[in-house]
């Protein structure tokens, strides 16, 4: 697949997440771009290799297109009258940053389970003196992205 089409598919994935809160399936990409499902799956694999999105192991299903999660997580973000799931604490702020929208974020303290609620309004964040911890340095993130 040519380079421009590959990045068009990447843009479609993000647009789809923003509009529907979920990842497009490979057959939806195939239909949108008039390609076979096999070609759409190969495009997903290529984008995964380039860290433009991340697939569930041995599938053509999107697990993450950061900051969006393709599966439900404990990091819930309400924005633009929709509810998104983020991949982690950072990505929960990443969703309003990417969408340039207001947002309400609900998550939990990893140790106590206490609710943590944040609000983003007019590109300012309010509402918590919580802390966010990064365990793994960026240079090691892609060794195991789910453990960062």
């Amino acid at each position, binding site marked *: 697949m040519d380079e421009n089409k590959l*990045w*068009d598919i*990447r*843009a479609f994935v*993000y*647009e789809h997440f*923003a509009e529907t809160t979920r990842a497009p399936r490979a057959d939806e990409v195939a239909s949108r771009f008039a390609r076979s499902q096999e070609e759409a799956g190969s495009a997903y694999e290529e984008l995964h290799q*380039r*860290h*433009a999105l991340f697939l569930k192991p041995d599938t053509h299903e999107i697990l993450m297109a*950061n*900051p969006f999660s393709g599966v439900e997580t404990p990091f819930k973000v309400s924005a633009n009258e929709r509810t998104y799931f983020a991949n*982690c*604490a*950072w*990505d929960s*702020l*990443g*969703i*309003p*940053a*990417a*969408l*340039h929208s207001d947002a309400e974020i609900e*998550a*939990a*303290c*990893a*140790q*106590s389970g*206490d609710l*943590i609620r*944040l609000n*983003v309004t007019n*590109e300012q*964040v309010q509402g*918590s*003196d*919580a*802390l*966010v*911890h*990064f*365990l*793994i*340095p*960026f*240079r090691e993130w892609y060794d195991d992205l789910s453990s*960062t």
Partner: protein
Amino acid sequence: MLFFRSEELLNEWLLSKNAGPGALFTIPQLWELSQRWYQDRMSPGFHGRTMEQVQDIFNEMGLTDGFWQL
């Protein structure tokens, strides 16, 4: 990356996981990083970043210690 209600709770968690110290952000600091990192993510022209561009973002945030070196 995980939320913690306090540094005390984080330290309890680190002990329970036998984990190293990692890096800690306040919410305003993380919001600033999020804006720098994700502000152009929805653009069709976003094709990822080079390691140099990533390092520039960390440097601009004052994240210059060993944890942030690529």
